[in-house]
C-alpha cells in the first residue's frame, strides 16, 4: 500500500524594511513602494516590521532578519535601514537605495515628503518592481 507523508508547505516569507525617512521625499517613497509590494505585488510572500522597533522592541523584534531573508529599502545614502538592520537584527540579503535607483533611471525624486502626486505613482511602481524582483530572487534560491 502506498504510504503518504503529509508535509505542511507554508509559503516562504521575505522581510522588507523601509527606512520611512520623514524628512525626505525619498523616505516617503520607501513607504509607498514597500506597501505596494506587501499589499499588491507579493502579499503572500512578504512581511514587514517598523524599523525603530529594533531599538524600542524586544528580542523577538530583533530576530526579524534572522527569521526572514530581508531586503532593506533606504531613501538616501545614509542607509539607516540597512545599517540598523545589520547592526541590531541580521545582515540583509539585499539593500536598495532610492537615490541611486532614481539616478540610474534618470527619474526625479518627488517634490514633497508629505504627499505624492500622480506623476510620482510611476516612481513608486518602479521602486516596487525593483523590490519585487529581489523578492523573487530570494524565493528562487
Amino acid at each position, binding site marked *: 500500500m502506498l504510504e503518504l507523508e503529509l508535509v505542511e508547505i507554508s509559503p516562504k516569507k521575505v522581510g522588507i524594511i*523601509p*527606512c*520611512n*525617512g*520623514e*524628512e*525626505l521625499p525619498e*523616505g516617503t517613497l520607501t*513607504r*509607498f513602494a*514597500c*506597501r505596494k509590494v506587501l*499589499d499588491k505585488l507579493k502579499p503572500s510572500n512578504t512581511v*514587514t*516590521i*517598523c*524599523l*525603530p*522597533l*529594533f*531599538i*524600542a*522592541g524586544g528580542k523577538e523584534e530583533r530576530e526579524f532578519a534572522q527569521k526572514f531573508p530581508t531586503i532593506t529599502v533606504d*531613501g538616501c545614502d*545614509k542607509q*539607516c*535601514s540597512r*545599517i*540598523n538592520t545589520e547592526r541590531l537584527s541580521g545582515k540583509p540579503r539585499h539593500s536598495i537605495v532610492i537615490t541611486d535607483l532614481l539616478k540610474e533611471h534618470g527619474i526625479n525624486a518627488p517634490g514633497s*515628503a*508629505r504627499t505624492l502626486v500622480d506623476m510620482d505613482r510611476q516612481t513608486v511602481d518602479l521602486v516596487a518592481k525593483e523590490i519585487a524582483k529581489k523578492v523573487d530572487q530570494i524565493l528562487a534560491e
Partner: protein
Amino acid sequence: MVMPCSGIGKAYGEIGRQATYALMDDLCPDRVTTTCLAKLMIGDPDAVDLIKNNEVITVDGCAHDCARKNVESTGKKVDRAVRVISAFKQHRDLKPAGVLDLGEPGYKLVKILAQDLAQGIDCPVRKED
C-alpha cells in the same frame, strides 16, 4: 522638533506622520520641524544635535512608543509624548481607510491631532478652509 514614529504596519503611524507635516507646513511653519527618526538610530550627529538642542514632541502610533524611546536613547528627555491610538480611542468613528491611504475619516483624525499638538506648543491655530 516633532518626531513621528515611522510606523508602517498600521494606519496610526501614517496619521502621526501626516499630523507632523500639517504642523510643519500649515499650522506652525516657523516653529516646527522634523528629521528622520532612523537617523537617530545610526547616531547621525546633526540629527542628534537637533534633538538635544530643541524642545521635542514625539508622536507614536501605538504603545510601543518607538519615537519616544528612540529619542530618549540619545539621552534627551522628551517634552511631550503623544499616542495616535489614544486620539483614535476618543474618535472611534474616524476609522482610517488604509495604512497609507487614510481616506476622509483618517484625514479628519490627522487634523484633530495636528490642532491638539499646535495648541500644546502655543501655536496660534489658523483659520482654515
